Each structure stands twice: as C-alpha cells, then as structure tokens.
C-alpha cells in the first residue's frame, strides 16, 4: 500500500512532494490541467480536496476555493468521477481530503466504497479523530485504503502513540498552530517537534502548513519524508495561472 510506495520513492529521492488541489476550483477543466502539470513537475502524491461549505481547519485561501467550487455547482458525485478519471490517467497515488459530513451524509461505508472504486489510495479527514471514527476505520481497512491521521505540535506523546495505532500510509504532521496558508518558522522548535513525531511512529512523515518555497523544502530534507505544498500553489494559480503552477512545483526541488 502507500507506505511501500513512499519507501520505494525515498530510495530515489531524499524528499518527496505532496501537492493539494480543491476539485472544481477554479473549474473542473482547470483541476484536470493542474494535476497534469503537477504530475509532470514530478510530485509523488496528491491530495484532492472535495469542497465543503464549512471547512473549519482551512485558512482563507483554501476556504474561498471551497466556496467558489460549490458556487459553480460542484457535487460529491462529480468530484469522485473526476478523481476516478485522474487515478486512471496518472501513475501517482491520489488521496481524498475532505470533512466528515460528506462521508457521513452518503453513508461512510458507501463513500469508502466509492473511493475504492475510483482507485483512490487513502483519505485525510481533519475533523474526524479516531475516537469518533470507528465505522470509517473499519470500512477503510476492508477496502484496503489508508486512513491518514494528523499530529500537531499540541499532541501529547501518549496521544501520538494512540494515533499511530490507527494510522496507515503515513502521518501528516501539522507544522504549527493555526490554519492552512500562513508562514511557518522552520526553527529548532520544529526540529524538536519532528523528533517527537519520529519517536511515536515508524510510518513515513509528511510535513504541511506553511511550506512555500524551495528553501522550505530544502530545510526539511533529512527530517521528514514528504513536504506538503497546499495553499501556496493556489496563490500561484490565482496570480499567474495553471502553467506557472507547473514551474513553481518543479522549482521546489533541485533534481
């Protein structure tokens, strides 16, 4: 599953890239083109966010992309159809990122079945702690999909070990407090936090929230396995268009 793929990729490169798009923003055609340029730019893994009207863990940039996608008539069915098409057309693994209500409304088992049929490899559901996620965990296990869990700087060592028990694929480490899309200070404090994460799990570690430049990615080499670039690609897209996103992502990593 994902863990083996990530470990194999790490044989080739000392830092992997995961990027993020909001499906249907600014349009479904643009989403297709964005994935194409990101895969061409060499990303190893992608998050496809299904828009939700109340994305409480996202900052203003991703929040507005969610709202505009919905305003243009984005639906769960249309998003999952596009996800299936992308999984078929590109050789990298894709994950769903969304909030729990979309799964809950459809029926968790049914939603997970749709993800499996679409060829998706896992999911990140930021408002579903394992305590509330029993049905989700069972469904994901039987579909052989990876539930990705999140560590934060406020997570105790004890809780990290509990989350590790449920996590598959990799662990998503949130770099700092706050929502998506602000800057992060890559300091000694971050190193201490990552050491705590590393001590709690042997799964690959991804670091997200505030990774915006090649210097940020360079700073993570040797500390985590995956750098997650989210809001910044949306900013580049809004300012300079789809093609600029390709060169921005390619430039994040010296080859």
């Amino acid at each position, binding site marked *: 599953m994902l863990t083996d793929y990530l470990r194999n990729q790490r044989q080739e490169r000392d830092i992997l890239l995961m990027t993020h798009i909001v499906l249907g923003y600014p349009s479904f055609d643009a989403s297709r083109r964005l994935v194409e340029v990101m895969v061409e730019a060499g990303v190893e893994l992608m998050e496809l966010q299904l828009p939700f*009207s109340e994305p409480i863990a996202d900052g203003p940039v991703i929040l507005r992309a969610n*709202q505009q996608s919905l305003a243009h008539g984005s639906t*769960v069915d249309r998003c999952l159809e596009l996800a299936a098409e992308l999984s078929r057309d590109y050789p990298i693994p894709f994950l769903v990122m969304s909030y729990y209500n979309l799964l809950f409304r459809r029926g968790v088992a049914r939603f997970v079945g749709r993800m499996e049929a679409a060829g998706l490899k896992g999911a990140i559901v*930021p408002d579903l702690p394992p305590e509330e996620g029993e049905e989700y965990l069972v469904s994901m296990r039987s579909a052989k999909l990876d539930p990705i869990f999140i560590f934060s700087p406020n997570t105790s060592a004890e809780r990290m070990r509990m989350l590790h028990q449920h996590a598959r694929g990799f662990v998503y480490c949130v770099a700092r*407090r706050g929502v998506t899309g602000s800057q992060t200070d890559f300091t000694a404090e971050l190193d201490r936090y990552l050491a705590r994460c590393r001590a709690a799990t042997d799964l690959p570690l991804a670091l997200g929230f505030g990774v915006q430049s090649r210097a940020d990615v360079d700073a993570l080499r040797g500390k985590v396995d995956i750098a997650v670039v989210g809001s910044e690609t949306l900013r580049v897209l809004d300012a300079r268009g789809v093609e600029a996103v390709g060169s921005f992502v390619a430039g994040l990593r010296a080859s």
Partner: protein
Amino acid sequence: MKERGYFGPFGGAYLPEILVGTFDEFEAAFEAARADPSFWRDYEALMGNYSCRPTPLTYAENLTHHFGGARIYVKREDLNHTGAHKANNVMGQGLLVRRMGKHRVIAETGAGQHGVATATMAAKFGFECTIYMGAVDVARQRPNVFWMERLGAQVVSVTDGSQTLKDAINEAFRDWVTNMDTTHYVLGTACGPHPFPTVVTYFQSIVGQEARRQVLDQTGRLPRRVYACVGGGSNAMGIFSGFLADQGVELVGVEAGGHGLETHRHAARLASSDASVGVAQGYRTYFLQDDDGQMRETHSVAAGLDYVGVSPILANLRETRRVRFEAATDREVVDALSLTVQKEGLIPALESSHAFVQAFKEVGKLPPEDVVVINQSGRGDKDIFTVADAFEDQAWQAFIQQKAEAYRAH
C-alpha cells in the same frame, strides 16, 4: 478526549487534532469548577450583584384576559445585564477563563447580544476581546456593533459563506486554533463540540431554577407548558432545565419559521422535515443541509435564530419526545411583539417573540386554572431598525433621513 459528550445519537467532539489538547484543558477546568461547591455560589453572587439576578417572573394579566385561557407568566431575561440571557453563560465562562489563566476571549455573535455580553465580561474581567460577526448581521444589528466597539472589543465582520452566525463560528475556530494558549473561545450557545453544550446548559440552568421556584411561589403550582425560542438552544435549555424532571410540564421549543415552512426559507431544524442529521462545526445534530452534506442558507427576521444547526441536547429531547417543537413565521413574530408591547409594556426581542407566538396560539384552549411560562430571553430595543421597517413607521424613516442629512452636512 476522555468523555465524548453524547446525548443519545447527538453531540460528540469532531475536533481538528490541533484543538484536542485545548478541549481537554477546558473540560478539566469545567469539571473542577463544577465539583467545587463554592464555584456555583460565587457565580450566583456575581450574577446577583452585577446582573440583576434573580430576574423577575411577571404575571401578564392583560394578555391573560385578552386570550381568556391559561394564566401567562413571563420570565424576564430581558432584565439581565446587557439585555438577554446571554450574560449567564458569558459571566460563567469568564470565571472559567480566570481559573485557566488565559487573558483573551473571542466569540461569535448573530444578533449581537452574545457579542455585547462577551465584550462586557471582557471589560469587567480585564480580558482582550475579539468578536466575529457575519457581515449580514453587522448590517442589521449596528447598535450592538457600536456597543461592542465602545466596550473595547474588536469586531471582525465575516464576509465568507452566508455571512451569518455559522460563518462567524467558523472564523472564531480559525482564530482559536492559532491562539489557543492565550485565548478562550466563549461559544454562545448550547452547540459545538463537547463540552460546550454541557457547559452552556450548566450556566443557563440558573434561569430554569429561578423560574420553577418563582412560579411555585406565585401560583402554588407547576406550569402546564413552558415556551422558549430555539436558535442554538441556550435560553431553551436554560429554562427547560428547571422542569425536565417534572413530567407533567410540557416543554415547547419554537424555531424560526421565516417566510413559512412550505417556502423552505426558514431556520426550523427540529420543527420541519427539511433538516437531516449531519456532522459540522464539531458536533452531530440536525442541520439544514443538502443531500451532499453542504449547509443551506437559512432565513429568519431574528438574527439570533438564523442558524443551520441546533443543540444536540435539544435534538435528543425531540427524539425522546420530551420537548415539542413548533415554528413561528416572521409575520406572526412581529404581530406577537406588537401585541405584547401594547398589552403589557414589555418589549421582547424578535428572537423571544417566537415563543410568545406559540403560547398565544395555545393559551386560549387551556383552562384558566392552568399556568404557562414564556421565556422572554432578551429585550427588543436592539431590533428597533428591523421592527420599524416591519411596521413601515413613517415618522421613524423621516427621523433616520434627517439624521443622515445632518451627518452628511458635517
């Protein structure tokens, strides 16, 4: 996350990982306070000398004669400091903030009553304060914005989403995940992730404790029915708490019927069949949402009832049939407000007037020996702009025009 805070199938704590530790700390502070017998005494003393508690229970004699049925008693939360029941929860959470050693508070507000109450508490306790308010609500509740700013709060107008209460809640959560070390989020209603529904109900239960004692003192009997409006559900949980154990007392929650349930332009989650169970803003309850789980626009003349979700405790009390839910339309609300002002000299808030509507529909059919209690959760002066528009008051319009011209001439 030791306790998950379920009421039947509703409630829970669907938290982003970054907030789990903060909620654990909040829950521990609350449980320690609740177990300390001096805490409730301190709270009652504070509410007694700062906020006019106990608030009166007023016999509405003229309305009673007008309808010719059960005797109508009104619980006067409008006389609480800052003009609504909101202060009960806010001052209580302020005491918890002091216990936790934090120095900044944030809050969401719809009608502005909770924002004014929080800004007042922050001024009294010396906390910094930021209030999140949907841009639509800022426009319709300007007098409350004025007072929040005078009280020293920063008021942030939220322009995302539907620009109402739910969007203000989302924005407050975004602030909290950044500033949880210094900041407490004073959620204003009996909704949200555990332990908020329990904490808010605990402080608001002071309303029901007083009302039960007062109605027994004044009439020698328990009420046949108790009416409360339901937005998030805090004033309803407050007054209902006093009577939950009295099986003979029927509890009636009145939601915002907006333009009428059949138009689907309303905010009735429990009284209509338009809502369904979902998980958003950290808890599981009935939401007005579409088949995909996206929240829908809601509508009410009363900003404080204009919300997509509802207290998980009330959702469960509907399931167990302990509380009956009804809806009142915008038009009915303005008429009930008008009648109450003329007959009793009481000015209920538009929110509270929903409870009056349902009581007025029912009291005439009850015998005169029966008693009903209506919770007047807040005062209506804040609604002067909305009410003046509803009455198409020409003299008021002329006054506003003159005022505008005077400002322009400056």
